[in-house]
């Protein structure tokens, strides 16, 4: 470890704000980029599930896989 104290780590001889800002923004972008597709996937799969359930109910659970009519 190069630094002696947590305060020194934070301060980095005056360069702390720059270094930490750069890492902070990067972390923010990475988290955003990770969360967006995950949220989208979850939203999509939820939509597919509800659609499926609705159709199962409508067809009285006799739906066949793959043999569905294309959208009207």
């Amino acid at each position, binding site marked *: *470890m*190069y*630094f002696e104290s947590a305060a020194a*780590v934070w301060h*980095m*001889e*005056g*360069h*702390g704000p*720059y*270094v930490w*800002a*750069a*890492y902070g*923004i*990067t972390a923010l*972008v*990475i988290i*955003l*980029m*990770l969360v967006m*597709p*995950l949220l*989208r*996937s979850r939203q*999509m*799969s939820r*939509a*597919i*599930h509800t*659609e*499926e359930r609705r159709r199962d109910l409508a067809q009285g659970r006799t739906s066949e*896989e*793959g043999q*569905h009519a*294309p*959208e009207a």
Partner: protein
Amino acid sequence: MWTFVHKMGSPPWFYRFATIVIRWLLPTVLLALLAGSVWGLLYAPPDFRQGNSYRIIYIHVPAAVVALAGYYVMAIAGLVSLVWKIKMADTAMRAVAPVGAALTFVALVTGAIWGKPTWGAWWVWDARITSMLILFFLYLGVMALFEAYDDKAAAAKACAVLSLVGTVNIPIIYKSVDWWYSLHQPASIKFTGESAIDASMLYPLLLMIGAFYGLFALLVLLNMKAELLGTHRQSAWLRSELR
């Protein structure tokens, strides 16, 4: 080999493949990013001239390297889509663009932040920063073109053409910006050969570059999966996959 390529082109197979890879990649990448950052921030020595501000190199350089490589990945996907007409390549190309743009953005912002303590200005028309800015424009162009087309199959083909043109252009752009910069600012005048970086600083940098490559792959796979869920929502395989 061919069977592998063929399998990659089939959405159900790819979906399963991506799910497995993501399961492994996600923790590995996060761990590597964390380890590399801690190493670079806390354990690597400061630079003899720039002091601690150089620690930004551990995100700036990896982001820039991967952002540039990402453009080539996108162009290769475009080529595959144009030549072999594999739909999956369209999806890949579409997924790479925002990831590459985000990494370019990271490189630009961290470069600007680095510039403040080093050069005394937030934005400096440095050769590499300027090249990154143009790369950012190239990514934005591809994304804008994709959005402009209503027919997404045609959009993918158009973006493929554009990204291939960009690929031919990128080395020329980089070289020209380098010369431009040398005309107005001295490029680092080297008489000792390659620019040198001390081993104690290099290893965390290499780790971070690896981690960013992993991050890139992870983000692209996540985006592709999300895209598949959207386009194949009517497919039986997807329904059974989600059950």
